[in-house]
């Protein structure tokens, strides 16, 4: 898609060239934009601002409940809420684990797909299929794989004679979170792979050939030519992946609904339960506010370190 810089003719619509039509053009622009901007304002911007505000109130479910401003009371309560801290820790392990594994596996696959290998076409198609699946279906699919009796995984361990490995993957306290993380990696890897592959295809051939002539090993060329050129793409996609993973809901809701014993209770699931099972709207919104602030803080630290490395 062309950018503004490539199309100088866009400038021609500016006021300098056609002063007489300036006013009518402006009205026309607003009329054209209105049908889009109005719904975005009413159903996206306004709810978001109100949601942030709700986090500072004692709003509860019900039609005629009085709402009053309570300042930081919700946050004081959150600080002392062991369930929240627990869920927050699980959320961090999940988001970091999924994002890092997703990135490493996707980078490996992208590097492979960038080579002249046989079966590359099959791999490219397969690499995109999980992306096309609705999150709920991904959850169901992996529930079938992890199923204690009729599951693919347990049957695999039986076939290779490792019956001791058979377990109720999603129901066991120690395996539930790792099992769920693996599903997150599977579901999110395709998009990361496609983005990294696009980035790889932008890395100049000449640099590689020059480095090869100078006798640099494959690893050296990867480390000093490919990786630096890929850094902006890597930073962008890992940041986005982190945000998406931290805010994800449907996948784990279907897989475990937060169980067993809250071992996979991601912050979003926790907030959902607070809001729609217990009706604590204000408290759930406060939780959402804390999550936004934390995500921004973590991203700021990450991006600053990357920037410093780049300089």
């Amino acid at each position, binding site marked *: 898609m062309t950018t503004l810089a490539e199309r100088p003719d866009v400038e021609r619509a500016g006021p300098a060239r056609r002063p007489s039509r300036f006013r009518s053009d402006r009205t026309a622009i607003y009329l054209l934009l209105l049908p*889009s901007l109005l719904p975005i304002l009413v159903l996206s911007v306004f709810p978001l601002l109100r949601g942030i505000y709700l986090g500072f109130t004692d709003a509860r479910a019900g039609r005629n409940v009085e709402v009053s401003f309570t300042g930081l009371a919700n946050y004081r309560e959150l600080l002392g809420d062991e369930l929240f801290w627990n869920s927050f820790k699980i959320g961090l392990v999940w988001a970091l684990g999924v994002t890092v594994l997703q990135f490493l*596996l996707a980078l490996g696959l992208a590097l492979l797909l960038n080579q002249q290998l046989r079966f590359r076409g099959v791999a490219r198609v397969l690499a995109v299929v999980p992306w*096309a699946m609705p999150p709920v279906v991904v959850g169901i699919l992996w529930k079938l794989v992890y199923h204690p009796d009729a599951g693919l995984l347990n049957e695999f361990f039986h076939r290779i004679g490792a019956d001791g490995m058979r377990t109720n993957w999603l129901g066991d306290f120690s395996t539930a979170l790792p099992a769920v993380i693996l599903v997150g990696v599977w579901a999110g890897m395709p998009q990361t792979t496609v983005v990294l592959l696009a980035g790889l295809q932008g890395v100049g051939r000449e640099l590689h050939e020059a480095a090869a002539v100078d006798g640099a090993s494959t690893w050296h060329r990867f480390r000093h030519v490919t990786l630096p050129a890929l850094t902006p793409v890597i930073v962008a996609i890992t940041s986005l992946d982190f945000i998406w993973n931290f805010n994800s809901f449907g996948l784990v809701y279907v897989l475990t609904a937060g169980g067993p014993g809250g071992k996979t209770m991601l912050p979003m699931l926790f907030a959902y339960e607070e809001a729609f099972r217990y009706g604590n709207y204000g408290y759930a919104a406060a939780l959402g506010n804390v999550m936004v602030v934390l995500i921004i803080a973590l991203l700021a630290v990450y991006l600053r370190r990357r920037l410093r490395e780049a300089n």
Partner: protein
Amino acid sequence: MFGKPSRTGRTLQYVALAGYLIFLGFPLVWLVSTAFKPPRELVRLHPTLIPSDPTVQNFVQAFTEQELGRAALNSLQVSLASAVLTVLVAMPASYALARFRSKLGTAALGWVLLSQLFPFVLLIIPIFLVLRQVGLANTHAGLVLIYVVWALPFALWMLQGFVRNIPRELEEAASVDGASRVQVLRRVVFPLLAPGLVATALFSFISAWNEFFFALVLIKTPELATLPVALARFVGIEGTARLGPLAAGSLLATLPSLIFFAFMQRRLSSGSLAGAVKG
């Protein structure tokens, strides 16, 4: 890209590729296989990868007994309405965004990135309250509104790119020939924009078709539930024999997006769509 790797290097690459194919492919094969297994095979102590006696009974059962048929119809209705409405609303705005410079346009596009940051839980409660006030909570119309708004930022961004690719000179030539503004839009811009409109409609359709969270919270009446919500409820029903219809329903729920991705495959592999998130 890495020159000629050694023989062992090549072998290692194929081993790694095989590993990826197994990791990505086997869960999919398992879903398809489960969908075609008769109940007798599903409850067997040691299930096989390939059903020995494949049947389509699961598909029939999924759509008759479990009311997935009605849920699929609901999903189809909501997704089609979202797609049509998104295109109608986004078309004029994207034209304005592409042809005129405006601060509003920049703000609208900036919202795309910003809105990614916020967890749904912050939005869902106020949206629920707004919809309840205007009597649209627990209705398909309310859900469609949310989906359109949710798809709009990306749809606008995508569609204005398509508008930019239409040479401005074509429009100017037509108006020199005496065509009115409306005629220029209808005879010149609209036909050239058709592929972009189809892509936007498909994007909006798929987002609505796959969406789970808003549908779960906003729709309370079971008869109005969309397919993802109905499938998630279906998961709760235990019993190994139920897995067949569940897998069959899931497979059918994936079809629309698979078709969409096949349609977009060329653009995906060339990376032009993937670049959407490159910022």
